[in-house]
């Protein structure tokens, strides 16, 4: 597992610098979009890659947090930080409720339960009057940070989003490399054995689920400020599928993989946007080719290569 730590550190260094200069190289909104999805996919990976649980309903946490944050900022005029905090909190609570029910099952049943609840959230988003139905919640104000920094301008907002991303990423990184993370890995590796060593496997899975939902919520909350919009796209099952795709593409169970996957998918969608309805077909085809060619995902393959050559 410990594939040359210096490679990892180099990867982080490149990532941090790239993040700092990104808004001068690419369109800031594009960069913010990538960061939100990178955080979302990394949070998802905590569950899939490090606990071995495939949730097929993570759009629920991303989307619900987006709606709550958008509503708090728009209807109640909350400042952005409080709005984000509330959205994240709601996603955390949802994660606790849904997670408690889902972790009793495993494999395909787990995936189906998480998906059913996500469909329920989608249905509520369609039905509730305050979510704006098909139009979504539009015109969410970005507000000012601590009453000082005007986030309606893209550059300051970018650095705010970047800070949120780094925070979320640091939480994930620490979780993976914590005593808790070690127990999670043992559960992923051999659940029955972990149980026989006296670990209440279900409780560990639940905490992992809640953390993953919370950080997905953080990503969704932030995203609603970036686009000043909370919409059905973010609670749709396509979104749940997309995060699986990003994670597998970049490399599940690797720290940087999901971010790389998010970058690729978002960039691809941007490039191909002009092709309209062909976008899912093309991304799907690319996905199939990638998964067949590098089973460990891009980062996973690079790691294996580095390990073999040193």
């Amino acid at each position, binding site marked *: *597992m410990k594939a040359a730590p210096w490679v990892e550190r180099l990867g982080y260094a490149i990532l941090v610098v790239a993040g700092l200069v990104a808004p001068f190289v690419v369109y800031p909104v594009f960069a913010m979009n990538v960061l939100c999805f990178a955080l979302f996919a990394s949070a998802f990976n905590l569950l899939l890659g490090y606990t071995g649980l495939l949730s097929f309903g993570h759009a629920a946490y991303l989307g619900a947090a987006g709606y709550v944050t958008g509503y708090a900022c728009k209807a109640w005029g909350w400042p952005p930080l409080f709005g984000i905090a509330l959205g994240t909190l709601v996603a955390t609570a949802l994660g606790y409720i849904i997670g408690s029910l889902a972790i009793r099952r495993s494999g395909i049943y787990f995936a189906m339960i998480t998906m059913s609840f996500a469909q329920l959230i989608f249905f509520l988003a369609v039905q509730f009057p305050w979510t704006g139905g098909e139009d979504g919640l539009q015109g969410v104000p970005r507000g000012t940070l601590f009453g000082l920094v005007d986030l309606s301008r893209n550059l300051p907002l970018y650095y705010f989003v970047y800070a949120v991303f780094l925070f979320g990423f640091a939480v994930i990184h*620490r*979780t993976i*490399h*914590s*005593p*808790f*993370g*070690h*127990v999670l*890995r*043992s559960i992923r*590796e*051999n659940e*029955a*054995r*972990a*149980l*026989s*060593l*006296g*670990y*209440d*496997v279900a*409780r*560990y899975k639940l*905490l992992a689920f809640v*953390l993953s939902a919370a950080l997905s919520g953080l990503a969704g909350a932030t995203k609603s400020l970036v686009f000043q919009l909370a919409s059905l796209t973010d609670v749709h099952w396509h979104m749940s599928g997309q995060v699986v795709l990003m994670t597998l593409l970049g490399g599940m169970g690797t720290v940087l993989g999901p971010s790389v996957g998010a970058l690729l998918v978002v960039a691809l969608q941007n490039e191909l946007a002009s092709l309209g309805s062909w976008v899912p077909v093309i991304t799907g085809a690319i996905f199939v080719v990638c998964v067949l060619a590098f089973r460990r995902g891009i980062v996973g393959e690079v790691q294996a290569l580095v390990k073999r050559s040193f």
Partner: protein
Amino acid sequence: MPDDAILVTEKLTKEFHGFVAVSGVDLKVRRGTIHALIGPNGAGKTTVFNLLTRFLPCTKGRILFNGQDITGERPAQIARRGVVRSFQVSAVFPRMTVLENVRVALQRKLGTSFHFWKSEKSLAQLDPRALELLDEVDLRAHANTIAVELPYGRKRSLEVATTLALEPELLLLDEPTQGMGHEDVGRVTALIEKVAEKRTVLMVEHNLSVVAHLSDVITVLARGTVLAEGPYQEVSKNPAVLEAYIGAAE
């Protein structure tokens, strides 16, 4: 001497959709002994282990550990009481190092296993004890090997080390020598003997020379019921036992 029974089962029964896999089994395992559970394939030996550790709930019956009823407890609770099992197929954490395998078992005692904000460096304090345990099973030199890369016999040794890390009172070993070469069988047998000096062992084993060599008491199970019980010399001459074995061989 009812007091020196560490584990007692009363009328232990398990049905799978009407099929009775374990039927009214009364077991009494005395403290400090090596107790073997033998029987033909499909006799219900693994199922008994699954019942004892609550990996499966029993249909009827009671399980007493140190005189306390543990029938309804959760698997993790039972493990924490000191009843630790191994599995019929080797059960290591394949993509973790040998050292990490043992450390996961030691880690629970620190009480920080839910601390997701703490650095993994805090686990390093367990390394000396983990290495000590690896020494006991001759694996210290492989401490940094990824477990999946170990040969089969070594994996089983690692399993023993991981189990010992919990300092269990009662070890349940499900076919510890299955699928091993001659040399490995010898090493694991010696290891069990050493381990049993301070603990009680209940083991399922097909290799009769291992059983004859190690066990103080043997319980023979066939079709879910106890066929015979006693020391090896006695049990091995029992006509019902011979018949069950020969019957199963046909």
